[in-house]
């Protein structure tokens, strides 16, 4: 499997990744004002979503059995996961779907003795999102400290473990979606869907009807990124959801591996 090859040759990939990061950093420094405004814009966007939580809780004490503080923790967890994804792999998959395959940029990845799938994932680290990640992560630690102190060691370990499982599911599913670029001329709407849904779907899935819950545990896996880990931390876990998460990860890894295999087989470069 690709993941195991990547882990075995991690130091080699890290050297390549460092060069890509340094190149992106120089690009960012060339447009400093642009980066500053983008960063501030991103934070006001996050604040806008948080205001909705505040407004919602002016009307009710709980949403789906979770208090305002607990929903805020869920939102911060979701933001931590998303900013981490956006700063590392998301932009790579996004541009792969929007232009790399369509204009033949992907050819260059096939010429190198490295796994194309990994190169795509790390091709565009988004350093502005990395700034978001650092700030959000610090905020998460600060805000979540009272919850961590109140939780048992087992709950904290469970939180971390299921957060990592959620991260793995997200990465593998996005990577699978990226392979649509091999088969479709245009698939950018999917990226917009993933981004817009992530801003709204961090609330506990039980508040939604069954079909929507099914989507949150499958095609748009936001439930794995925030709801399940936070539920474990708060002692409100649902064992069925935990089992689903544990089973979902290897399934998604397998589907991703299979999707890339099929995609690479059908790819004949933009010039053919």
């Amino acid at each position: 499997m690709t993941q195991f090859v990547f882990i075995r040759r991690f130091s080699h990939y890290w050297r390549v990744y460092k060069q890509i990061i340094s190149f992106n950093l120089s690009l960012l420094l060339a447009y400093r004002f642009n980066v500053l405004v983008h960063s501030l814009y991103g934070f006001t966007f996050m604040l806008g979503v948080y205001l909705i939580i505040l407004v919602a809780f002016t009307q009710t004490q709980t949403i789906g059995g979770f208090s305002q503080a607990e929903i805020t923790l869920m939102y911060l967890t979701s933001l931590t996961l998303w900013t981490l994804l956006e700063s590392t792999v998301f932009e790579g998959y996004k541009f792969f779907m929007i232009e790399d395959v369509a204009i033949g940029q992907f050819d260059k990845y096939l010429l190198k003795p490295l796994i194309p799938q990994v190169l795509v994932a790390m091709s565009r680290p988004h350093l502005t999102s990395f700034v978001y990640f650092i700030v959000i992560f610090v905020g998460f630690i600060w805000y979540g400290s009272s919850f961590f102190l109140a939780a048992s060691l087992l709950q904290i370990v469970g939180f971390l473990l299921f957060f990592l499982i959620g991260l793995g599911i997200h990465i593998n599913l996005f990577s699978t979606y990226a392979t649509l670029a091999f088969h479709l001329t245009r698939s950018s709407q999917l990226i917009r869907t993933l981004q817009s849904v992530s801003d709204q779907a961090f609330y506990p899935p039980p508040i939604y009807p069954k079909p929507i819950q099914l989507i949150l545990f499958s095609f748009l896996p936001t439930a794995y990124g925030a709801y399940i880990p936070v539920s474990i931390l708060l002692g409100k876990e649902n064992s069925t959801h935990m089992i689903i998460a544990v089973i979902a990860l290897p399934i998604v890894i397998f589907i991703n591996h299979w999707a890339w295999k099929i995609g690479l087989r059908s790819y004949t470069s933009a010039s053919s």
Partner: protein
Amino acid sequence: MNLPIYLHVGRLSLADILEYRVDNIIRIGRYVLTISFALFLWMAIGNETTITEINIQELIGYYVAAMIIYGTSNYHLDYIERDIRLGYMSKYLTKPVSAFWYYFAHQATVALYDIIVKSILFLPFIAFTSIFSITTVLKLSIVSLLLAVTFATTFSLYYCFSSLAFWFQQVDSLRMTLLFFRPLLIRHDYPILLFS
């Protein structure tokens, strides 16, 4: 102004949207999901408590109506900046068309398509609420006119910012400076009563 040419541009834009069927289905799925998530959140709140400021049906009706017309002001013209940077703008210099009206016709078609698709998708929700029971033909006409004015105004404003790409490499930030407070108002589609 050569209207048939711009109408043709609109038809081409529509054909372009409809050509990529899977992408279009995903776009429609996005409309359904994003609106549904907010609706079900407020329905869940409505189930747990009584919202004093506004009836839950009115809230849903207001939100759906706001989301349907959202496309008249929520779009980016970054493709114009790309056209300027890559020199594609040159084609308008050799043809009897205005770049402004060309892009206007394209974006207006996309916005109109959005409104029509969302209206069809959320017809059951609209029927469920009482929002159109008080609506007359005159009121609908005034709303339609206001939407057209909103679109024309926002398009002109965004176009001004995009045209800065003639002088600057990256004008994203300039446009975003203008829209800086929009994220804070991102859910301006909720009735203002709730923010009191």
